[in-house]
């Protein structure tokens, strides 16, 4: 297993945001993480990315125990992530933003620049390379976040609602981008609200509700499961919808 999270929990005070969640991701998979708002998927996601240290359980990546490792150690091992609310470096140009990522594997400026330009080309940001990041709109920012993390050569890419807030055309373009990243050999875990994206991309879906995993399996099967429909629409809807 590339990523293995066992019995992970995270509490804020007395509130248990994640209660005993397990997740195994094999090399080459695309796994979708879904669930209603407040289900704990973002908290779980941040535990895997190293932003939060879990209150309990164990997380390992490629044989390394990363449970309590800081975020920068995750990046070094090959776990990359994007943010739900884009956290681009506003004062820096798009090229400079991506170079910060590229510097992780290339200490020299020239090499980092070459790597950054490669990624910028691939993510379709080439015309904007010299612009400050603050000039970008939401789709551009989301794309820049993906470019920036790709420059670190991740083996596992964690996408936190990387497609939220995009128009349907942009969503299509973004799906293509994610697919091409996957084809280049990167394993992907994606948190997403848009069902279309999950159905299109994920080979396997994990459904969160109230801090627990309530279902998992193939996307088409999972979305028809009673427990999942109930989690999204409330009790009583599950049976009606199934009929």
């Amino acid at each position: 297993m590339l990523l293995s999270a066992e019995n992970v929990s995270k509490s804020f005070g007395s509130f248990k945001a994640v209660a005993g969640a397990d997740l195994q991701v094999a090399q080459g998979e695309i796994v979708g993480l879904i669930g209603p708002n407040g289900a704990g998927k973002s908290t779980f996601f941040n535990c895997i990315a190293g932003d939060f240290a879990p209150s309990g359980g164990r997380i390992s990546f490629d044989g390394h125990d990363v449970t309590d490792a800081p975020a920068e150690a995750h990046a070094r091992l090959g776990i990359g992530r994007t943010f739900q609310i884009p956290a681009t470096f506003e004062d820096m140009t798009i090229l400079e933003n991506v170079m910060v990522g590229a510097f992780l594997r290339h200490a020299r400026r020239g090499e980092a620049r070459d790597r950054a330009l490669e990624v910028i080309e691939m993510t379709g940001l080439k015309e904007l390379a010299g612009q400050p990041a603050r000039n970008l709109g939401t789709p551009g920012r989301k794309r820049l976040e993906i470019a920036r993390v790709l420059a670190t050569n991740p083996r596992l890419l964690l996408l936190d609602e990387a497609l939220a807030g995009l128009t349907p055309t942009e969503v299509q373009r973004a799906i293509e981008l994610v697919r091409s990243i996957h084809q280049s050999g990167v394993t992907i875990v994606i948190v997403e609200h848009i069902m279309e994206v999950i159905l299109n991309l994920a080979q396997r879906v994990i459904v969160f509700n109230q801090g627990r995993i309530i279902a998992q399996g193939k996307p088409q099967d999972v979305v028809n499961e009673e427990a999942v429909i109930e989690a999204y629409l409330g009790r009583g809807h599950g049976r009606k919808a199934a009929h």
Partner: protein
Amino acid sequence: MRRGTVALAAALLLYPWLVSGTGSSAFLQDMGANVLLAALGAAAWNIVGGYAGQISVGHAMFFGAGAYLPLLFFHHWQLPPILGVPAGIAVSLVIAVLIGFPTLRLLGHYFSMATIAVAELLRIIVSNWDLAGAAIGVQGPAISRGWWDLIFRSAVPYYYIFLAVLALLLFVTWQMQRSRIGYYLRSIRSGERAARSLGVPVRRYKLYALMLSATFTSLAGSLYALKTGFIDPESGLGILVSVQLVITAALGGAGTLFGPLLGAVILVPLQTATNTWFGGGGTGLTYIIYGGIIVLIARFEPGGLLELWHRHISSRFNKRAEARDAA
């Protein structure tokens, strides 16, 4: 840009000679040396405060260490003050590491407040410490015992010493700006969490920035003490010293290579003018001017004057380009 840098270097090199023909050449040469010294301190602060975005308001602790040590070397052992310069840097580095570890975890205003507290603490300790001259201060050699005492009648030798050190610092900053550490520091200023997610060891790089900044701030303090020949807790460790470094850099443009120099070119003559016009009462006025500048920068141009300049220039270039495209 390159041509501009050469012109600037030429102007700085020729300045003492250019003003030598005027009636007040000694006064203008002395002011020139003070401008360079202010630029040096502000450029040193700029590494951690500008590039890394960690607003220290306690840099007087490094300036003071640099200023005190050389004069203490003379005061206690009659050694040439210049031998105390490396000692000042060493003490500054120790302080930087000691305070850096706990305070660099703090974000934004909390870091600024912690640095103020440490600097004030140091000022109070030194004010009550007889070995460090207590509240009276420490004096350097009154008459030169040899060239190594670096005592000159004219401000011109100081001017060129300051210029050489400033040139070194700007070169180091320029190198830093275009290598990994420069990109990392700017990413930290923009967003620590995102920087960390890309593998930037945030605390380590902040500490590097603080150490580099402390080294050159200490040097600025040493040069000030060598030129003035006297230091007391207020002029070496007072909060006004820290504030002046911040204001000078911020006025010109924090996080830019030449911003601190621009800030110094404006501020030092302004201070000299208020001091001459209002005599001893001018000190209070300095505070008022600083306060006014803080308000104006924060309200209208957080990027400093250099940013204003760049915007102006780039908009003119764009207009020219548009005109060319239209033709």
